[in-house]
C-alpha cells in the first residue's frame, strides 16, 4: 500500500521520556486480533493510557491536553520487542507521522519506514534538549525536514542532522513502497529462484 508523502513536518510534540518502550506497551497483544488495518490508534499505549475499567489514566501524557502534535518523542531503545507492525500502525492511526528517539529497535524502525512514519534518531544530548524545550513550553514546535535530513527546535533554533538511507528517503518523499519496487524486478527474482532449489 502506497502511503502519504513526507517532506517537511512542523508540529508540536508529545514527550515520553521513558527508555525501552516496547511494542507490547505501544499495542498490547490482545488488540492484535483484527484482520484489517484500522482502529489501532484507539488502543495505542492502551494499558498506560486507560485503567482496566476504560477510564483514562490522568497522569499519562496522551491524556494531558497540554501536549499534542504529530511528533512523538521517546526515550532510548524505542520500539523494542515484538515485530508486530500493529505498533507502527497504532502510532500512525493515532495521528503521529514522526517518532524521535536517541535509539530505535531495528524491526520497529523498519516497520515505521514501511508505512510512512519517519523515525528520526538524534543524539542523547539533542534528545535531552527537546525534552527540556517541551517541558519549558508544551507549545514548542519541532521542524523535521526530510529533504535536508535535519531536525530543529524552532523556539531555540538548535538543530541536528539525522541519517536515512537514500533509497528509503526517496520512498518517503514520494510515497512509494517496497512492493512496487520488487514487483518491477520480478523477472530477475524468478531467475534467481530457479537457481535456488528449495
Amino acid at each position, binding site marked *: *500500500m502506497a502511503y502519504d508523502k513526507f517532506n517537511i513536518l512542523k508540529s508540536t510534540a508529545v514527550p515520553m*521520556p*521513558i*527508555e*525501552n518502550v*516496547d511494542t*507490547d*506497551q505501544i499495542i*498490547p*497483544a*490482545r488488540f*492484535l*486480533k*483484527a*484482520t*484489517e*488495518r484500522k482502529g489501532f490508534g484507539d488502543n495505542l499505549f492502551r*494499558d498506560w493510557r486507560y485503567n*482496566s475499567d476504560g477510564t483514562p489514566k490522568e497522569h499519562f501524557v496522551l491524556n494531558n491536553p497540554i501536549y499534542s502534535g504529530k511528533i512523538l518523542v521517546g*526515550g*532510548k*531503545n524505542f520500539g*523494542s*520487542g*515484538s*515485530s*508486530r*507492525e*500493529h505498533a*507502527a500502525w497504532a502510532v500512525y492511526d493515532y495521528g503521529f507521522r514522526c517518532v524521535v528517539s536517541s*535509539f*530505535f*529497535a*531495528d*524491526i520497529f524502525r*523498519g*516497520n515505521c519506514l*514501511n*508505512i510512512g512514519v519517519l523515525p528520526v534518531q538524534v543524539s542523547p544530548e539533542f534528545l535531552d534538549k527537546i525534552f527540556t524545550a517541551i517541558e519549558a513550553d508544551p507549545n514548542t514546535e519541532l521542524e523535521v525536514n526530510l529533504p535536508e535530513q535535519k531536525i530543529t527546535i524552532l523556539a531555540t533554533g538548535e538543530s541536528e542532522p539525522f541519517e536515512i*538511507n*537514500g*533509497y*528509503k528517503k526517496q520512498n518517503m518523499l514520494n510515497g512509494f*513502497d*517496497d*512492493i512496487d*519496487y*520488487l*514487483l518491477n*524486478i*520480478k523477472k*530477475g*527474482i524468478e531467475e*534467481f*529462484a530457479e537457481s*535456488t*532449489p*528449495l
Partner: protein
Amino acid sequence: MSKTLFDKVWDSHVVQHIENGPDVLFIDRHLVHEVTSPVAFLGLKNRGIKVLYPERTFATADHNTPTRNQHLPVQDPLSANQLKALEENANAHNIPYWGLGHKKNGIVHVIGPENGITVPGATIVCGDSHTSTHGAFGAIAFGIGTSEVEMVLSTQCIMQPKPKRMRININGSLNKAVTPKDVALFIISQLSTSGATGYFVEYAGDVFKNMSMEGRMTVCNLSIEMGARGGMIAPDETTFDYIQGREYTPKGSDWDTAMEYWKTLYSDRDAVFDKELTFEAGEIEPMITFGTNPGMGMGISNNIPMAETIDGAVATFKKSLEYMDYNEGEAMVGKPIDFVFLGSCTNGRIEDFRAFASIVKGRKKADNVTAWLVPGSHKVEEAIREEGILDILEEAGFELREPGCSACLAMNDDKIPAGKYAVSTSNRNFEGRQGPGARTLLASPLVAAAAAVTGKVTDPRELMQEEAFA
C-alpha cells in the same frame, strides 16, 4: 576473501544490491501465522496478485489459539475470525496449512525445525520476532513486519540493509543447573536489550558446540531480546543428525549435495566481525529476571541491584521495580509466586519438559501455584506421553495443555491476572505481556519447576542437591 558464516549465507541470497540502500534478499522459506498475515493477504488481494511461491510458504495457527478443548469451536469471535481468515487465505493461495487439531500443528518456531522446513544455509522469515530461533541450524532467520510479509508473499524477497556482524564466544563448561536459557539470559543481562541492535550474532565456543539442537534453538530464539535481528550457530554433526530424515529435508542424492554445501557453512578462521565478545561458562548461574525487560536479569542467588549502580535511566529502572512491587537490594530467592508457565517458542520443546519433570518427579505442585504446562507442538506432546513424562507430571499434580503460544503473549484465555507473579519460561517480561498488570519472572524450566513445587522463587540446585544425598 575470508567470510563469516553470516556473510556466506546472506551474500548468496542477494538478488540485487541497491546503492545507498538495502539489499534485495531472496527468502527460501516463509512461515506464516494468523496474527501478522491477514493484512498482508489483503494487500495481495487489493493488488490482484497471488502468492509467488506457495511451495516455499507454510502456515500454522498458534498465537491466538486456546490450549484446552481445541476440538471445539474457538469461543472468542475475534480469534475465531482471525483463524478462519488464515485458513481461507492459505486455501486460496495453495499454502500448506496446519491449523488447530492438525497433527503437525504447533508454535511456528517449534514445527519449522520439527518438520525439516528449517535447514542450514537457508533464509527464513516470519512475521514474528522470535524467528531468530531457526538460526540454531546455521540459517539466517529473522522476524519481519506485516508490510514485509506482504513483500515475501508477493515476490519471495524483502529489502533489508545488511546488518553488522557480532560474535559471542563462550568457552568452558557450564555449572550444574545452568541451561541454555540461563546462558541466553546471562548474555542479555550483560548486553542489555539494545546491546546487539543492528547486528546479526554468531554464537561460538565450547558451550554452543556441546549444546543440543533444542538448546541452540533456545539461545538463538532470545537473540532478539538483546536487540539483534537474529543469531546463528554453525551447523555440525549435531545439526545434521537432527534434521536428517525429517519430512521436508532433502533426501537421497539431494541430501548429499546439500551436505557438501552445508559443510562449508562456518566462519573462516580469519573472518572479521564488527564486534566480538567473550564470556566464561563458569561465570553463569541459573538466572532469573526481576524487572520489566529481559535485560533485567541476574544470577538467582543475587540481590536486586541498587538504582545508583544502574547503567542507564534510573527513572526507568525505578518505574520497572514499582511495577513489579520489588525494592532495590532485595533477594529474589524466597519471593512468593502465583503462577508457573512452561512453554513457548523459547522453552516449549521436549528437553524443556524433561528438565521440568526431573525436578517435580516425586514432589507435589505447591497449593498456591497455578501451573500452565503447554507443549510447543503436537509432536512435543506426543513425546511427553511416550517418554513417560506425562505420568510424572500428573503424579505431581500438574496438567498438560494443548499446544500454542499461550501465556507467552496472552492473546488467548491464558492470561496471568493483574498483580500476580508468574515464573515463566517464555521470552518477555514486559509490563502486561502475560496479561494486563501481570508480573513476569523469566527463568529456565528448572527454575520454573523449583518454583512450581515450592510456591516461591527457589534455587533449583537446592532441590538437586537433596537428590544427590537421597
